[in-house]
């Protein structure tokens, strides 16, 4: 697994978590990621990922017209399968992060 693939798996988990909070759209997700200092990937790389998540049935989308006019904006919602995937990610992540932390801490001392 290359480092970018690893990062994408993590990004997917984070996107699921953000969408779980409330329905949201691409640019808003990127702003939230940036607020949490998750800036390791370029902004545009969320879109191919969101497309895949939609195909896997983790999210659904609805298009809403903007008050200012112009093209419609696509909002994402979590499906039950998406919620399940988020829970799995949380479990996996806490296991991985605590074990990696432990190893690195022992390595330092």
């Amino acid at each position, binding site marked *: 697994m290359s480092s970018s693939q690893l990062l994408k798996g993590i990004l997917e988990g984070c996107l699921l978590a953000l969408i779980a909070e409330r329905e949201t759209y691409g*640019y808003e997700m*990127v702003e939230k990621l940036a607020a949490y200092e998750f800036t390791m990937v370029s*902004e*545009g790389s969320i879109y*191919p990922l969101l497309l895949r998540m939609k*195909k896997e049935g983790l999210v659904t989308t609805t298009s809403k017209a903007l008050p200012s006019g112009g*093209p419609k*904006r696509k909002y994402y919602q979590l499906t039950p399968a998406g919620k399940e995937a988020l829970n799995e990610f949380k479990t996996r992540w806490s296991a991985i992060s605590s074990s990696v932390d432990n190893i690195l801490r022992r390595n330092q001392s």
Partner: protein
Amino acid sequence: MTLSKASQTFLDNLRVYLFASNKKEEEVKDLLEELEDHLYEAEQNGKSIEHIIGNSPKAYMKEVEAEVDKDGRFWILYMPMIILGAFAYLVMDKVLDNDRSYSMLSLIGNPVVFIVSILGLFGLYRYNAANHVSKKIEMIGYILFSIIQFSLFIGLLFADNYIESPIFTITPAANTAFISISFLVFVGLAIFSKTWFVVVMPILFFIPQLISRYIQISENTELVFLFCILLGLAAYMFWEAKRMN
């Protein structure tokens, strides 16, 4: 709502790239709209395009390409049409020579050359869209492509003279029917594809042949003719690439 030139160019290139990669039109449209919305908001906030798509447009295009579904219609719908078109050209070519016999080699070779040409052209469109190619290099690419394509057709004609393969000769009545069908195929393809490609190609190929049949011309003039056809073809492909945006 207006985007910067860099962003608009990128979106245009991405569209051509995905189109030439034979991706589902609906998915492509959806994704491009979403990206356009994002780029617009990002620009309002003073972000550069590199911030959105990373430093390599090509890498980003490949990333997107991996997730968008292929359009199965290409093989089911377009391929038979390409083969039909190839036969129509063959019929026209034979008509000009007053010839009613078809060799196995030309019947198989013609569609093969057509398919190779179209896949090659798609490859060229993809390359130009994903890489920073100057106008000059782009034009040279189309000219080279035209030369190769033309050589394939000429090569096939030569091969047909030297290699023996089973010959099918049709009756004059069948010939008339073939000509009518070919004509309908040209018109149908032009209307369906909404491009002049299928009309421009036979004009470029057959008009010089017609002229040379009625007027005695020297070999030098023929070479000039050939060069004009190639330039015409290259210019047309260049124009078509721009039009797709």
